[in-house]
């Protein structure tokens, strides 16, 4: 028996890459996949790197692959959108050293701005092979197999785990580590120069067309590989309704079987392309197939196409409407769908718990002690005073858009705050515009929007929240950090210096805990022409609390209830969870207060003072 370790799905995938002899691992942090790279970085012989963004990460990996070195790119689904341009060339050139892309999907958008199925980009757009694991152990096995198959087929392999696989934790079998090949660079311009050149050898056909043909000719090869893959199998059961269980769908289908005490015919699928013969063998015995997949009807559509081509008469239903087309799959969804097909099973479905009490939703907010609460407070005062519009971006400070502040008016994807602010300025509505963006997000994609704004001469205020880390996803370093993933010294890029060099009207560095200083900077910036940059610099409170280098001197604050006039500015313009409000008065919750003292500045009538 192999040695067992208790690992998270992400760690299991990292271990799979290590066992496969990976040498270069590059990615950008994001829930649900950040721990893959963190796990790998514990192995000193591996080059593990959090990159400026996902596209850069994949490009680094391809460079390594050119030299016969196995490489792994790690990102969440939004990042896979960012790499699409490169991916649509990488698929034509193919790879040398095994290259695996882990694209973590988040069905149900548990920690994301959208719920996206990255099988669509990677399989339907790029025609790459995709593995879809149902559990952490299979995720590890798939990563390992993907490296071997990537070299065998010369194609980048994609592993697409969903959040529940990434964040699942179980015992994982550990195996030996394969030794990598010696690196060697060898030119092949006919392959790695992707350009519209006429190939004389091929009668003057343009190279992209030839490489496209190469990719198409790989598909039958992949079909054979998937036919023999251990990640697909058939289970016999009662009846003529077959359950097609894709990826995490298999976990839910197996739970449902246990609860219902009935064995269904199951086609367990984990690969794209599909194992055509296996699918046909299964389908020909069935009247109807129900496809359980997260989250779009990808396999469902492929099955319909296949059965049309093959003349197979079987009804196929799934996420296109028979099952809920949005949200995360669950055992409950499987159970309900089966009870719809077999009414006698209805009574075995766990009853829902009745409740008359209203349970308030718990949304996240800035941590108590977060320096950005001071920044958001000052920004809200200024923006409301000048009737300004605030565009937002991705990161912890985005909680300023929720209750109680309701400050930012837009949040889309990484780096969209500054360009959208430019567009608002161009529209002709004469309100000042503010864009607020975090440091990691700024480097990821935001810097381009800033350079564009400076070049085009638009009037706006760009506020960069500089806490020196990617706090939202668990404190990963970025180009503004002075350490790398292992904590070794790294060159920190100075945001204010960059903005100044690019020609911003001003680049003011402020301490976000210092509310008067932030207010003053905003007052000056909003009156300037061109792009004014404000960099609010202070390490994340959760980090400084650990290191002891706090950005404030902790001192107890007291609230004079007689002075409090119930104006609620401390709630609606500040929103610290340690300030409670009832019966028309504010009170301090000393159980959670960390004594940052920003509220002393916030209270306009002096009801909150230092003790």
């Amino acid at each position: 028996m192999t040695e067992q370790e208790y690992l998270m799905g992400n760690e299991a995938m990292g271990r799979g890459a290590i066992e496969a002899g990976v040498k270069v691992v590059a990615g950008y942090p994001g829930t649900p996949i950040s721990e893959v790279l963190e796990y790998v970085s514990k192995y000193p012989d591996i080059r593990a790197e959090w990159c400026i963004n996902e596209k850069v990460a994949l490009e680094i990996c391809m460079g390594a692959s050119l030299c016969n070195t196995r490489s792994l790119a790690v990102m969440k689904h939004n990042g896979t959108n960012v790499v699409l341009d490169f991916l649509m060339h990488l698929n034509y050139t193919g790879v040398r050293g095994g290259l695996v892309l882990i694209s973590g999907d988040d069905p149900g958008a548990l920690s994301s701005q959208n719920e996206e199925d990255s099988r669509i980009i990677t399989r339907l757009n790029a025609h790459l092979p995709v593995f879809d694991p149902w559990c952490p152990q299979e995720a590890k096995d798939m990563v390992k197999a993907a490296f071997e198959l990537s070299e065998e087929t010369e194609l980048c392999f994609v592993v697409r785990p969903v959040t529940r696989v990434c964040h699942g934790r179980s015992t994982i079998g550990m195996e030996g580590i394969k030794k990598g090949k010696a690196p060697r660079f060898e030119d092949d311009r006919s392959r790695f120069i992707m350009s519209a050149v006429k190939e004389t050898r091929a009668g003057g056909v343009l190279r992209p067309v030839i490489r496209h043909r190469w990719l198409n000719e790989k598909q039958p090869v992949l079909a054979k590989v998937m036919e023999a893959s251990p990640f697909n199998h058939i289970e016999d059961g009662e009846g003529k309704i077959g359950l097609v269980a894709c990826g995490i769908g298999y976990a839910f289908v197996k739970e449902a079987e246990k609860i219902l005490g009935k064995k269904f015919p199951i086609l367990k699928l984990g690969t794209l392309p599909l194992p055509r013969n296996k699918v046909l063998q299964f389908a020909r015995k069935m009247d109807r197939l129900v496809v359980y997949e997260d989250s779009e009807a990808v396999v469902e559509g492929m099955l319909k196409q296949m059965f049309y081509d093959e003349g197979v008469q079987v009804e196929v239903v799934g996420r296109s409407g028979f099952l809920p087309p949005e949200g995360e799959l669950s055992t409950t969804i499987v159970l309900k769908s089966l009870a719809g097909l077999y009414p006698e099973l209805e009574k075995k479905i766990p009853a829902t718990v009745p409740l008359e009490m209203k349970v308030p939703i718990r949304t996240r907010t800035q941590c108590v002690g977060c320096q950005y609460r001071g920044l958001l407070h000052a920004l809200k005062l200024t923006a409301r005073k000048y009737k300004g519009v605030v565009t937002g971006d991705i990161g912890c400070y985005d909680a300023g858009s929720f209750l109680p502040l309701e400050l930012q008016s837009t949040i889309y994807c990484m780096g969209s705050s500054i360009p959208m602010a430019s567009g608002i300025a161009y529209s002709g509505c004469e309100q000042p515009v503010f864009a607020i963006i975090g440091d990691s997000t700024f480097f990821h994609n935001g810097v381009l929007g800033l350079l564009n704004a400076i070049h085009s001469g638009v009037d706006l205020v760009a506020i960069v929240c500089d806490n020196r880390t990617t706090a939202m996803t668990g404190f990963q370093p970025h180009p503004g950090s002075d350490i790398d993933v292992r904590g070794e010294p790294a060159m920190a890029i100075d945001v204010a210096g960059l903005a100044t060099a690019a020609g911003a009207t001003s680049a003011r560095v402020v301490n976000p805990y210092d509310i008067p200083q932030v207010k003053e900077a905003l007052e000056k910036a909003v009156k300037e022409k061109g792009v004014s940059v404000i960099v609010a610099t202070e390490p994340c409170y959760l980090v400084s609390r650990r290191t002891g280098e706090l950005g404030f001197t902790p001192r107890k604050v007291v609230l004079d209830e007689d002075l409090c006039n119930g104006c609620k500015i401390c709630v609606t313009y500040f929103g610290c969870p340690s300030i409670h409000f009832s019966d028309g008065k504010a009170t301090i919750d000393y159980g959670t207060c960390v004594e940052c003292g920003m509220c002393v500045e916030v209270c306009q009538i002096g009801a909150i003072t230092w003790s």
Partner: protein
Amino acid sequence: MVYHDDPLNLVISGVGGQGNILLSRLIGRSLLRKGYHVAVGETLGVAQRGGAVMSNLRASKKMPVGPLIPEGKAHIILSLEPLETLRMLVRYGNPQVTTITNFNPLFPVSVLSRKDQYPEYDALKEAIAKLSASAWFLDATGMGLELGAPIVANVIILGGLISLNLLPLTRDDIEEELKASFSPDRVELNLKALNLGMESIASNTQVSN
């Protein structure tokens, strides 16, 4: 109540920053040592920022299990915050469930900004008790404060769980795990917390149906 079902399903819930994830890891690793197949599913990403955090922990003597507990199938709900106990009961509850709650209400932002109301404490307790086969309430955060570390509320709750004998784990098993998981200077504090949790369940009024 002793649960003989396999797998055993445990829901651990609370608010970001309370140490829920650590709690699930302590229990998970202790069960692993006893030869159980353990699977845990976690909802992360809002940790430390006041969002609701939840772990599913499943243990089986027979076979590997998936990490997600089907709705309505929890045996035990451990919660570091009472509103979260109720939230979990609605999703995972059933007439056999035991709940152990740290009665330390933390107000969601919607409550702080007066858009929503936090339930009256007595009514909240009553609602939890009504939906549980047996419901236990501890002031673990208060006890932790007395130890000078409110963060050990999670280990106090764990002490409560152990003394109820609902899991195939003894105090010694947890002690071994605490020694393996914490740096030597933190072990004593956590052992104190464990004992405190065990004692307080003994003197606690259980609300049973």
